[in-house]
């Protein structure tokens, strides 16, 4: 065998080895299919604190009160304070944060929720529990306006829409702090 052929065989072997390695773990497997914009928007219902994801539409508290009375009050009480399910309405004097000290203060939208956008996001996806996902965007804006007004956070006539809702400042926002424990757990060796 000439030196040239030997080198050629060696190079071929190297290539084959590289090919085998590539077959072991490629950067991509080429699985799945491209999602179309329509497929994404059909599922993409989340709303972020900066307002990203909020749909068109609007609502005011008075309209929300009517919907609340017919679709929500039986589980959350006539004014949002009575239950039997989660208490939605209530403020703490001076907007304090007495929850660690006093187990009897219910966590409400007015005294505990740090972001107003969460009200829209959660009500739209999960309420009422008997017909989740059944409310129109206008209904959800109206209910959000009603709950924020009932909690003394916005004025009676304030219109909630994708521009105004992210600007609503929540009293409890300043009390939330990220976990300071070390987040990365000891990694299990694969």
């Amino acid at each position, binding site marked *: 065998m000439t030196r040239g052929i030997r080198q050629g065989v060696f190079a071929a072997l190297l290539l084959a080895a590289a090919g085998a390695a590539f077959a072991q773990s490629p950067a*991509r497997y080429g699985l799945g299919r491209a999602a179309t914009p329509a497929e*994404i928007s059909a599922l993409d219902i989340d709303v972020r*604190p900066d307002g990203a994801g909020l749909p068109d539409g609007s609502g005011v508290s008075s309209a929300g009160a009517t919907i609340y009375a017919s679709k929500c009050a039986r589980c959350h009480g006539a004014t949002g304070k009575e239950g039997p399910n989660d208490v939605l309405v209530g403020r703490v004097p001076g907007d304090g944060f007495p929850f*660690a000290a006093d187990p009897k203060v219910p966590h409400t939208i007015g005294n505990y929720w740090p972001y107003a956008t969460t009200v829209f996001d959660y009500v739209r996806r999960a309420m009422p*529990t008997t017909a*989740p996902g059944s409310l129109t965007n206008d209904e959800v804006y109206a209910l959000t306006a009603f709950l924020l007004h009932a909690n003394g956070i916005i004025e009676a006539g304030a219109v909630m829409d994708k521009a105004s809702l992210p600007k609503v400042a929540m009293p409890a926002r300043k009390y*939330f702090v990220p976990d300071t424990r070390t987040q990365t*757990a000891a990694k*299990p060796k694969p």
Partner: protein
Amino acid sequence: MKVTRRDLIAGAAGAVALARTAGAQTPADPTKVRGTPPRALGDRASTARVQRIVRGQVVSSTPLHDLMGIITPSDLHFERHHGGVPAIAPETYSLLIHGMVERPTIFTLADLKRFPSHSQIHFLECSGNLGRTAGPETTPGMLAGLTSTSEWTGVRLSTLLGEVGVRSGARWLLAEGADAAVLTRSVPIEKALDDALVAYGQNGEALRPEQGYPARLFLPGWEGNASVKWLRRLEVSDQPFMTREETSKYTEPFANGTSRQFSFRMDARSLITAPAFPNRLERGWVEITGIAWTGAGRITRVDISTDGGATWAAARLQEPVLPLAHTRFRHMWQWNGGEAVLMSRAVDETGYMQPTKAELLAQRGPGTATYHLNPITGWVVQPDGRVVYKEESWA
């Protein structure tokens, strides 16, 4: 016919044998009757009664006191859901990954299974895993049965993210379920790229519906709620979404007047599962056994006290001691009939030691939410051998 005392005893024994086998049709002598043929699907022994503890509409607990070893049988894995258990046809299932990615992609279940698969044994614990108002007649499962250990099989989330191409600046992922709560949690990208799985297998077979069939997110060592079940969508973002489950719920008020958010990791904890209520001890040697686990890696030590925490001795850890999984411990103890208070405390590889209730209360205050409470727990052995939960007041 004259009935003798001997006949009476034999008759009574016969009645006992019948009572034991009633409904189960077990013969008095199994060596004299041919047994049943093979069956496509097995059952538990008809006398082995074991079941979850169902509380209301959204929770059922693992009967930890009935289990051995570290693996939780899949049909006894605890449940916690916010909109019931959805029924999802595997052929219509799909997972959408979009947001800050190069290639928004839809994966079918078959696609997910074509990726390299990983199997990992891990615990999954609900962060609200403590019955704070439990009375003496509380079993370990009733007290803290929202933790289970399974072998989870799936594709690494890092593999899927490599497939779709994460854009620079991505910091968080929103995980969304296909249940009636359309439950959502934000997950830091570091965890997604570390050991997170999109799991479709549980203990060697498909996930149970209660655990997220056909596919779920699984975040080893982290609070159960973040491991979103029935996973339908992952959206990559540069910021958290502040969903209801990470603001209104699953946050912990602290005595310093703040609320801790994104407290994902489960801290080290142990629980004696026997003897405990409703066991009754006989004098002599007793095996004290239970489970310990930590979201920080491996359990390195479990101490046992039989005198209410005055003195401690190291228990034996049963192999395998796996990271982020239940570890079984045991300790032989001689009970001579006096009152005793049995306790266990876990230490993990970071040196963290399971706290007392007093330590937790000092940090959290009596009004804190139920999340991430991992106190040392006691069981009182009464002089007559009865074992009851050592009641604690949290208010």
